[in-house]
């Protein structure tokens, strides 16, 4: 008994500390542990782009995707957003076709049009060899990708070359490749002397110079038909990052700040009220164990909130709903145990024995029930979209936490209180409903 009292005291202190942690980190503006709010609560824009990998070799896809991510990140940072998030997703659809996506979260940005415009301007730069093929009697010009793309660009600069056209200096764009790109460029140019190497910008050929000789040193110039302004824009856009693969906007969503704030307030209010009603119901029906379970439930909530802050789990409206529902479900294990304890008591066991047996008999059902709930939660998470994952993560965490809090916490609390030998009043305290025992 003393042992359980010590445990119970430790659990209570831990509960207070957790509650304090949750409260203190939320009221301290400089804390690193604020709740992380999803876009639907904080307001913001989410853009989902599909990367067109049809021209990319299967083995290079992951690399191309992470290069794409880097480029978009630079772009987003330029857009001036606090805490932007750029994620990639390689979804393999059930048909076996893999789809590569880029998910861009822009908290606080509600103007989709501006965001799309700012991200979408990024050019794709590709180098293709022009070869003529003969099919029957007709010859046609085919552009063969060389694998050299904007991904290998380290920077671009503007220069005015002494063009052959008399007098006027033509604007040129000087491309500096990174070391890998430089080697690739040298290899291509040495193997295809005399052929045309076309430079494609956003899918359009802008310049088709003939390769005169192998070019080492990793530099190339584009002498297109640009005006000085066009050339300057191109240089700027290339420096912001040329896209290694073309992308297209697939999904977009934006939530204004007012809607999100209202959702948070409503969610918090519903949570508090839900917790109080559930706790009152438990105390009213189960008396002493009810009080114990309300206490365990409070600890459960404090624990969940702390875990959500520490991991951190991004809270969405559906996540808050999941948390509130889990409050209702978390008492389930307690209900099972208390019902069991009551039955044992009726069969003439002493109160303490009844509590012990109640816990051990209820265990298999609690274990099987919780495990199946966790399985469905994990499959939910796999479903993927952010709104679903927000719920699934909180749901799985909640089931796990209730597993621990209901079984161990309420057990420790009850065993710390219920005496070895009991008189009539313990039968009442451990009883339930309108009955006397």
């Amino acid at each position, binding site marked *: 008994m003393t042992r359980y009292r010590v445990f119970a005291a430790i659990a209570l202190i831990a509960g207070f500390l957790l509650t304090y942690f949750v409260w203190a980190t939320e009221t301290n503006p400089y804390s690193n542990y604020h709740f992380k709010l999803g876009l*639907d609560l904080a307001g913001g824009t989410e853009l*989902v782009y*599909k990367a067109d990998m049809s021209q990319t070799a299967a083995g290079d896809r992951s690399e191309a995707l992470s290069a794409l991510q880097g480029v978009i990140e630079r772009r987003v940072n330029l857009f001036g957003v606090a805490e932007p998030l750029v994620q990639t997703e390689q*979804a393999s659809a*059930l048909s076996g076709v893999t789809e590569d996506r880029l998910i861009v979260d822009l908290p606080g940005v*509600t103007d*989709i*049009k501006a965001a799309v415009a700012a991200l979408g301007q990024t050019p794709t730069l590709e180098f293709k060899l022009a070869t003529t093929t003969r099919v029957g009697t007709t010859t046609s010009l085919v552009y063969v990708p060389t694998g050299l793309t904007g991904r290998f660009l380290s920077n671009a600069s503007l220069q005015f070359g002494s063009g052959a056209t008399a007098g006027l200096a033509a604007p040129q764009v000087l491309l500096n490749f990174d070391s890998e790109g430089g080697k690739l460029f040298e290899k291509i140019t040495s193997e295809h002397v005399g052929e045309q190497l076309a430079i494609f910008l956003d899918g359009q050929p802008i310049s088709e110079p003939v390769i005169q000789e192998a070019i080492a040193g990793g530099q190339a110039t584009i002498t297109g038909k640009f005006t000085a302004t066009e050339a300057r824009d191109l240089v700027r856009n290339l420096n912001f990052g040329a896209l290694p693969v073309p992308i297209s*906007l*697939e*999904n*977009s*969503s*934006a*939530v204004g700040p*007012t809607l999100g704030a*209202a*959702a948070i307030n*409503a*969610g918090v*209010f*519903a949570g508090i*009220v839900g917790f109080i*009603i559930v706790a009152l*119901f*438990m105390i009213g*029906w189960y008396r002493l164990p009810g009080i114990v379970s309300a206490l365990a439930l409070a600890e459960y909530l404090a624990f969940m909130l702390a875990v959500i802050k520490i991991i951190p789990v991004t809270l969405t409206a*559906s996540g*808050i*709903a999941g948390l*509130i*529902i889990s*409050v*209702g*479900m978390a*008492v*389930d294990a307690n209900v*099972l145990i208390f*019902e069991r304890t009551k*039955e044992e008591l009726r069969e003439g066991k002493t109160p303490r024995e009844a509590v012990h047996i109640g816990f051990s*008999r209820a265990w*298999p*059902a609690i274990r*099987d*029930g*919780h*495990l*199946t709930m966790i*399985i*469905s939660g994990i*499959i*939910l998470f796999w*479903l*993927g*979209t952010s*709104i*679903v994952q927000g719920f699934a993560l909180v*749901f799985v965490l909640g089931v796990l936490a209730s597993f621990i809090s209901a079984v161990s916490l309420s057990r420790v609390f009850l065993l710390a209180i219920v005496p070895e030998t009991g008189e009539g009043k313990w039968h009442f305290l451990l009883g*339930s*409903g309108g009955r006397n025992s």
Partner: protein
Amino acid sequence: MLAVAVGSILFFGLPLGIDFKGGSLMQVKYEAGVPALSDIQTEVASVDVGTAFVRSSGENAVSIRTRTLTPAEHEAVLSAVSKTASTTELAYTSVGPALGSQFANKALWAIFSVMFVIVLYIAFAFRKVSRPVPSWGYGLTVVAMLAIDIIVPAGFYAAYCHFTGAEVDSLFVVALLALLGYCVNDVIVIFDRIREHLARNEKLGLKESFEDTIGKSINETMTRSINTALTVALALLALIFLGAPATREFSIVMLIGVVAGTFSSICRSAPLLIPIAKWFAKK
């Protein structure tokens, strides 16, 4: 109840939202009260975006659903509706058709795989119980009940959608999957009790008919089933009446499912298990 639910699904149909079919959904707030919905529809129709569905959503706000819009079309629709009244866009979502159908596929897969894994788990958890029903018999019974447990709320929601213009979104799938988890838990508690009684009878050499064992087990666990359903229902009611509008329909589906699921695990587990037991007794 099952017949009504199936009838409702067949009769009203489950209208799939943009999460499944692709499309754009914008929520627009009218500062000075919402004009007639048909007027808004006419305004939207002035932009060439196909058919638009307009329904009121929350206080002074409407949601407008169209096919997937380009950013430019989105702007055009917004300026069309703000021509005559001062509006603010609260939220905008646009889903490409490809992603939508992919989600629909995934959702169906998720529901079936949850059921499948549950049969396996229950067959495993009850592996020591083999008489009079083999352990996988419990698994199959659970799945039969789970199918009912999600058909009933789905049927209700079909009727709800028909009368309110709501649509099936991804949260609806979440609600069904969460319900699967909840209802399995409910049935497992009853089966666990049956398992315990069977083991005890065998140990003490007691003869008891399977029907009696089931009846006893259901009676003993009934208070627990009802109380747990009550606490979850209380939390859900708080969400429905006080929670965010975004999760209201989700909570309603959950509530119907929890009530129906509790009812079905109390009333249906026995009628489903006994015929299986008889069938095996004959063999």
